[in-house]
């Protein structure tokens, strides 16, 4: 009967199989995936809209900016709503749990702040175009997939979607040499590292016969089977390389300073917070669930990487004069602290990772937003010395920046303090005494380079760089205030987030 339409045969077969094995996504699955759907649709729509609007210059940035914010807000609400439908989606490809929701909200929030701090920047660089916002949306979709992935192929797809969009964003200003260099370095090294990840996935599939995290976990936990540890260890090591690269943990941090320095400031703000948080989230999920049973194998490596990352980040930052590069090294150092919490591999460690990443995202976005505001057209003023006298010229900007810097240092009443507090508490609970001691010493060293910025801002006479400084634009203003407020709230009332983090860090069970 269908013979004449044999070209349809595979499709029908597929449909048959899907109904047969219940592969058909249910309505709940779409709700769980709703944020990604919203953002993907809108992102695609932006590409079309960009074509329709064409070269119309007036107000394009505003239209796209506002639309993106609205989209992200809708996605945010969808996340909250989806949290009411916990469980697997698409036959176990994704999992919606508190942990996933926490990070979805975080990366979407980061996206909103990044968009807010881009308005003026794009206008000033004459680069207001829809693809910028579309790329941001696609990158966030990738991140959302990453943090809810329950299966290694989804991890890979999410990571690639997010990364490719970010590669392009890093080189967004096509005519800027630094942008080009950053994008190419990021792309080449990033693809290189992703290959490691993919290779690791292949090895673990070969060993366990599955790419599902829970299946791998069950496989590894089964002590009756004699595991080929060389095979499994290699798989874990290869995946570790891939993730460590994405979170810029040593010895795979080498790309970060160049890329962060070369990319446009709002993009740096975005990618040093969002993709990094997402990569950490998936790192933790994979290693705490799938590789959970062989924790004693990977813990020493995370341990050494954490130490190395903190040392390289902090000590290299001491020497930097370019503020973007300084913040890049500082973000490496902070990745090291998060690695300490992962090395602790306990539940409080996981909630410490969550808390710290939230605090870190806020202060980092804030700091880079100040740079975006301050650097002016062509990012002319990006040296620490150029900030001289900011405290007098624009007291509000300087004060907000000071809050972020104090939070980086880890002064009490800021989110950074409690983040570090929980991380080192987790590490001590896990008996990582030397790592905690060395980590705390590191954070004492770190005070030095942040302090230098404070000194320059408040204790040096304004120089030539202050002459052409514009007042804060609304977008950046909102970003700064929101991040500063968030940083302080996390510092003064950490329970707000900590309770949620603790209750949702139990995915490992």
């Amino acid at each position, binding site marked *: 009967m269908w013979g004449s339409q044999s070209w349809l045969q595979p499709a029908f077969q597929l449909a048959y199989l899907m109904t047969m094995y219940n592969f058909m996504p249910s309505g709940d699955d779409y709700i769980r995936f709703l944020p990604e759907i919203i953002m993907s649709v809108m992102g695609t729509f932006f590409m079309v809209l960009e074509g329709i609007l064409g070269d119309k210059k007036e107000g394009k940035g505003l239209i796209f900016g506002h639309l993106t914010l609205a989209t992200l807000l809708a996605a945010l609400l969808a996340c909250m709503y989806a949290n009411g439908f916990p469980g697997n989606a698409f036959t176990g490809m994704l999992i919606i749990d508190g942990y996933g929701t926490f990070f979805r909200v975080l990366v979407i929030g980061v996206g909103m702040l990044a968009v807010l701090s881009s308005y003026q920047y794009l206008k000033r660089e004459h680069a207001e175009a829809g693809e910028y916002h579309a790329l941001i949306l696609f990158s966030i979709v990738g991140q959302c997939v990453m943090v809810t992935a329950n299966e290694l192929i989804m991890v890979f797809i999410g990571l690639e979607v997010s990364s490719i969009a970010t590669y392009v964003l890093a080189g967004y200003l096509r005519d800027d040499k630094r942008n080009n260099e950053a994008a*190419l370095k990021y792309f080449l090294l990033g693809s290189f590292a992703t290959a490691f990840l993919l290779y690791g996935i292949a090895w673990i599939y070969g060993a366990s016969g599955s790419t599902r995290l829970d299946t791998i976990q069950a496989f590894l936990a089964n002590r009756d089977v004699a595991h080929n540890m060389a095979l499994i260890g290699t798989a874990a090591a290869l995946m570790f390389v891939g993730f460590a690269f994405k979170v810029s943990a040593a010895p795979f941090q080498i790309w970060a300073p160049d890329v962060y320095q070369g990319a446009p400031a709002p993009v740096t703000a975005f990618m040093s917070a969002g993709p990094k948080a997402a990569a950490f989230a998936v790192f933790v999920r994979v290693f705490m669930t799938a590789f959970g049973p062989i924790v004693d194998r990977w813990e020493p490596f995370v341990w050494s990487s954490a130490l190395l990352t903190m040392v390289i980040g902090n000590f290299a930052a001491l020497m930097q004069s370019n503020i973007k590069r300084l913040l890049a090294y500082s973000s490496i150092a902070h990745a090291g602290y998060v690695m300490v919490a992962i090395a602790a591999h306990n539940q409080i460690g996981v909630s410490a990772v969550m808390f710290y990443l939230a605090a870190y995202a806020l202060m980092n976005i804030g700091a880079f937003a100040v740079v975006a505001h301050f650097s002016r057209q062509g990012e002319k003023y990006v040296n620490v010395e150029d900030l001289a006298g900011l405290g007098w010229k624009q007291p509000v900007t300087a004060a907000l920046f000071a809050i972020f810097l104090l939070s980086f240092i880890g002064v009490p009443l800021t989110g950074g303090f409690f983040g570090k507090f929980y991380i080192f508490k987790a590490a001590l609970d896990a008996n990582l005494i030397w790592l905690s001691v060395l980590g705390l010493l590191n954070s004492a060293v770190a005070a030095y380079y942040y302090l230098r910025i404070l000194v320059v801002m408040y204790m040096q006479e304004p120089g030539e760089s202050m002459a052409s400084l514009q007042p804060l634009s609304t977008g950046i203003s909102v970003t700064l205030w929101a991040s500063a407020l968030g940083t302080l709230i996390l510092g003064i009332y950490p329970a707000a987030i900590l309770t949620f983090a603790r209750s949702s860090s139990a995915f490992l069970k």
Partner: protein
Amino acid sequence: MNLWLIPIFPFLGFLINGLFGRRFPKQVVNVVAVGSVLLSFLWVLKTITGLGAMETAHVERYFTWIQSGTFNVGVDFAVDRLTAIMLLVVTGVGLLIHTYAIGYMEHEGGYYRFFAYLNLFMFFMLTLVLASNFLLLFVGWEGVGLCSYLLVGFYFTEKFATDAGNKAFIVNRIGDFGFTLAMFLIVRHFGTLDFGTVFEQAKNPANSAVPFFAICMLLLLGATGKSAQIPLYVWLPDAMAGPTPVSALIHAATMVTAGVYMIARSSVLFTHSPAAMDWVAAIGMATAFFAATIGMAQTDMKKVFAYSTVSQLGYMFVGVGVGAFSAGVFHLMTHAFFKALLFLGAGSVIHALSGEQDLRQMGGLRKKIPITCITLFCGGVAIAGLPFTSGAASKDLILETAYARSPILYWIGLLTAFMTAFYVFRALFLAFFGKYRGDKHPHEAPFVMWAPLAVLALLSLVGGLLSVPRWLEPMFPEKELNVGQLITILPFIAGFLGIALAYLFYVAKPSLAETAKNSMGWLYNLIYNKYYVDEAYDLAVVNPLIQGSRSVLWRGMDAGLIDGIVNGVGRRSRGIGNILKLLQSGSIRNYAAWVVFGSVILLIAIGLSGGPR
């Protein structure tokens, strides 16, 4: 009792002056700044009288700050007898210094900013002493450090002041590192940071496995940072670059004594570890002696008093280290009186001479600024420990207890007392006797400045009558001391001898001082240059760190800067074919090599540890 009102008044003062002070006339700024401290002082009085005997701590719990599993930290304030003394000292002396600052800062720029910072400092300091758990104490601890940083660097146009502020901040980070670790250990072994619970559990003999020695040594490291003891004392003398009222309030009377307060507060923990107590005493004694020798050769009036502060803090450490907690706290209080007086007096001299601090440019000032002169000499006799002054009462108690612990401590302490009397009176004689050597026109300070001096002079003389040890008896039971009459009298004699020697050298026969200086040239130089400790720290710690970062991390790993020229990428990479050029260019290949290198190490390591277990 609404304890929260005590710190909140200065905080409001900070907010009002900080936000609107720029637009206020000076009088309004004054009223807000001084008024807020006055209100808090009055509230302290009301609280203490209201609480009466205070046999046990009065705790007020406001809200749960952090709840994480079984681990709970609240925003709780508590008042007991120890806190009561600290509150009185901080708000009382603070009030006097705020008043004084009105006169002192009158001609300075950033007037409102100065008072806003000063009020903020009061807020954090009061939080520190009122805190009822280690974490809240740490908030105050860091907060006062931050304010100290802001205030030391207040004259930010002078590079030296900025450097001094930085040094203070960074050295204190090392101390904080110790404090933080100690907190973690406490959480680990007691499961809480609340003072009451921790100390109660520490008394329980079942908790003998707790590493008290480690906890106490780490707390001690924290205390050495904040209270400027060996090895972390280097920041305090430099911190004198700040305005003089700041030196008096923060670097003499209150903040620097936080370490002593913290050790006294944790006395229960310290008594479990006699070895750690010995360390406290040894560090205190070494610092007291060491700083006193440096003080003998300084020519800057404020520096002399700065080293004497370090030295006196050393005495307090000896006190708490030998178990005489109440004597340590007693000395903390009397020291707050006479050292605040000495600093404010020095400020008055500096004010009179329009900023001159060098003793060699002073002389004969006793006729020109008589009130300052008289009050300063009151402070001098108190610090020298002449009989019946406040300094004598507290210092002797420390020395006597030290004698009971170990006579060596006593003898070094005695020698230090002699040196103290000598160098303080050396400074006073150089400033007020002889002929005027400068070229300014000295004028007496206004009433708002000399009135606090007078009050402090009175307290320095009779403050010893306030029997702090008896008041603290329920918290720190006093031991029966059986020391000979001679031991009690010797410190007085040492004080008199020191003053006499200073008189001989600097008033009666000034040529003698020169001869002595020349005959011991190398020793004098060594002391004058503060034993080259700063240089040694630079050589041993700072330079290797910076050089290491520069040559290893920067040159070795970070040379690939983004400038678009290194690789010529920017211009050529438009065409896809040119990407190959990028691959061939140096840096990116190196980077990829790094990734491979790291992966190989990792794989080998995992491979070696592989195999079934």
